[in-house]
């Protein structure tokens, strides 16, 4: 038997049997675990509180604008660009490049993790599980965003990945925490 024959056999091997029970567990887990982005939105769901904050911001804005308006106008002229959007600056590439600008906005964005980036066709579920360990030194921020949903810290995530997930070719342990869907919502 050659190396390539072994490879072919392994590629044919199913990682895990389809399991309705496991699917239910994953679904229940995902329902129970509130995404970070939803939490952020819900904190502002009180109309009374929002109105008060908005009014306060308006007053402060008017005051600051009145006092510093001329100075800002000068700076605006200096710092104005051509106003064109940055081509190719989608969220996926931002995440893979290290999640630049993640703290500048609280909008909810849906990200597609592509199959070939995170997992192969044999992977029956935990694409995000693999992503927790992907990236290495350059992608620490994006790793944290994903991994900290289920893990207590980036070190724990890496340890879990190596010690637990790698011990099970079926990846059953991953699917307790990780979404089986390709689409994930993250906070940008």
């Amino acid at each position: 038997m050659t190396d390539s024959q072994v490879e072919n056999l392994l590629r044919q091997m199913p990682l895990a049997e389809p399991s309705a029970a496991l699917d239910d567990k994953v679904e229940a887990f995902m329902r129970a675990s509130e995404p970070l982005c939803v939490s952020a939105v819900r904190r502002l769901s009180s109309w009374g509180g929002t109105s008060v904050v908005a009014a306060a911001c308006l007053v402060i804005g008017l005051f600051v604008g009145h006092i510093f308006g001329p100075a800002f106008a000068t700076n605006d002229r200096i710092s104005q660009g051509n106003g064109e959007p940055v081509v190719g600056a989608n969220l996926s590439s931002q995440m893979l490049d290290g999640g630049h600008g993640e703290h500048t906005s609280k909008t909810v964005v849906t990200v597609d993790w592509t199959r070939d980036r995170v997992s192969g066709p044999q992977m029956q579920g935990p694409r995000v599980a693999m992503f927790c360990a992907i990236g290495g030194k350059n992608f620490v921020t994006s790793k944290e965003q994903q991994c900290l949903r289920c893990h207590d810290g980036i070190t724990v995530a890496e340890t879990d990945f190596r010690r637990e997930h790698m011990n099970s070719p079926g990846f059953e342990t991953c699917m307790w925490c990780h979404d089986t869907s390709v689409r994930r919502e993250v906070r940008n």
Partner: protein
Amino acid sequence: MPDTESPAEDVLTAERDQILRIAVHDLDDADREVIVMKIFAGLTFDAVGEILYQSAKTVATRYRRALMKLEERLRGQL
């Protein structure tokens, strides 16, 4: 699961998968890690290298070595 033509083939496939599964499980952590990421997750050597903080060349060497160990374990069983 791959489609097979008969119950007998189903049994053979299941047995083969079980033997493979055990062989992979019996590898040590480092070898299994590379096999799982390369074959099951479909990652490139570069990507595996990023995860393991190793060069793609080192990963490729480890991968070949792990395949050879698997081959030894599977010899006579399949």
